[in-house]
């Protein structure tokens, strides 16, 4: 049978906005070509036409399920360029928000991963538990997923009354739910048989492909910006970086589950140690001439911002190095001579989110 080219996406329940062109020989995929750009919005150029604070809302939409990290990276870069020192309390609030966003993003990923292996119940559970976090976000910022709450110099407003208690309640519930997920999904025969041994990456290969985030940690490489180059208040908090051993889809999934546990403990620590004081430092409206690169560990991996200032109120150049784009080469590498049914599993074990890939 001749090799046939099939388009997978963008109208497909699993691929989301991503389009992959697959060369299939019967049921076996021989080659894969990502066809990205369906959600390209020209974000970088748009940010260059806004001033530093106005650029926050568009940038946040680059990765809407993990919007806090998208803003955090940008804000850190702007502060570095302007030379603004952020107050301690704002740093802790940033950690709380960022870790909540990481859990929300991983829960979103979890349901898509479960759908990729064909378990529909697990589509409902994590999405419902994610609502808990979205309610917390709403309580604090007034928006479910698009908060625009970090500004150069700190955060917009202080934590509301009762936020701490409600967060603790939500966290203990989530902790128990993570155990449920472990039993329900990770120990299930279907999930194991569909993910173990699928999309195996050795540490050397992963480094060579330039993977970031949980995808590289699944192969046993311990890289985490929160540890390597601490930003916000991560240097004052204790956490471990979970890694996998084999480097297959199952390991990458387990890493994300363990990360959620770490995030829960991080939020608890940050809430308990929350110092008092101001939440905002005055920041100038224009940045001096110069350039900077800042990176944060988003839910999908390292997210970098390259920012050039030219002394005006607008960035001269803004370049985003997004984690999904950096994980994309692995998709092509792993999907050679695999059965067609493994493609969704590999795709979601790398957690490729097309919106921040296209920007």
């Amino acid at each position, binding site marked *: 049978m001749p090799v046939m080219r099939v388009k997978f996406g963008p109208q497909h329940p699993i691929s989301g*906005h991503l389009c992959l062109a697959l060369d299939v020989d019967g049921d076996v995929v021989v080659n894969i070509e990502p066809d990205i750009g369906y959600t390209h919005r020209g974000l970088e150029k748009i940010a260059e*036409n806004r001033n530093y604070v106005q650029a926050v*809302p568009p940038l946040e939409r680059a990765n809407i399920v993990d919007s806090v990290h998208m803003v955090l990276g940008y804000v850190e870069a702007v502060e570095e360029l302007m030379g603004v020192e952020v107050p301690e309390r704002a740093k802790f609030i940033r950690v709380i928000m960022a870790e909540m966003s990481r859990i929300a993003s991983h829960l979103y990923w979890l349901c898509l991963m479960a759908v990729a292996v064909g378990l529909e119940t697990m589509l409902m559970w994590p999405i419902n538990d994610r609502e808990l976090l979205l309610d917390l976000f709403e309580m604090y910022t007034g928006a479910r*997923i698009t908060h625009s709450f970090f500004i150069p110099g700190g955060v917009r407003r202080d934590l509301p009354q009762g936020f701490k208690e409600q967060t603790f309640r939500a966290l203990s519930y989530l902790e128990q739910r993570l155990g449920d997920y472990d039993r329900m999904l990770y120990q299930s025969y279907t999930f194991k048989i569909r993910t173990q041994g699928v999309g195996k990456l050795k540490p050397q290969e992963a480094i060579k492909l330039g993977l970031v985030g949980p995808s590289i940690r699944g192969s046993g490489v311990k890289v985490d910006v929160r540890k390597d180059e601490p930003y916000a208040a991560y240097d004052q908090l204790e956490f471990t970086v979970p890694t996998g051993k084999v480097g297959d889809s199952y390991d990458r999934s387990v890493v994300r589950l363990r990360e959620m546990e770490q995030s829960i403990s991080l939020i608890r620590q940050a809430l308990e140690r929350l110092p008092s004081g101001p939440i905002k430092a005055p920041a100038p409206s224009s940045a001096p001439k110069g350039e900077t690169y800042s990176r944060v560990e988003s839910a999908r991996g390292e997210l970098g911002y390259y920012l050039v200032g030219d002394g005006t109120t607008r960035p001269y150049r803004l370049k985003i190095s997004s984690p999904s784009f950096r994980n994309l080469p692995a998709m092509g590498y792993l999907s050679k001579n695999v059965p067609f049914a493994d493609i969704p599993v590999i795709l979601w074990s790398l957690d490729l989110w097309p919106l921040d890939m296209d920007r």
Partner: protein
Amino acid sequence: MTLSPVAKAKETYTLLKDKILNWGRAWSLWSVHLCTGCCSPELMAVSCSRFDAERFGTLPFPSLRQCDLLFVLGVVSEKMAKRVKLIYDQMPDPKYVIALGDCAISGGLWWDSYCVVQGIDKVVPVDVYVPGCPPRPEAFIQGIMMLQKKIQGKEV
């Protein structure tokens, strides 16, 4: 005037046909699973158990040949617009379109972007507009209810 039973039945049928058909259509709106922009996480929230759009008969469905509703989920780039048109053309009649999010309505946040279609109604005809960035799940559901009213011929 007395009608024969057959004629009576015929008259009743013509009266009720549209009503029953529209009732059936309004409560079984199956939507195409097409994500165009960043409003898509809210579709996920809406179709899962907390907000549960299935109460209103709406369910994202993988195959577009059996669908009669197209959600345009937010920003549509020039590249995606061709796909949206293609998908709309492939759907069987009667078909309805709901434009979700400011971007799908008028370009929204990306009003000065070089690659974003400023309003999806330039590409496909739209029945209901739901504003918001992204629209809350409640707004989502309100949009579905408005479409149902429209289909049933009531005033919206």
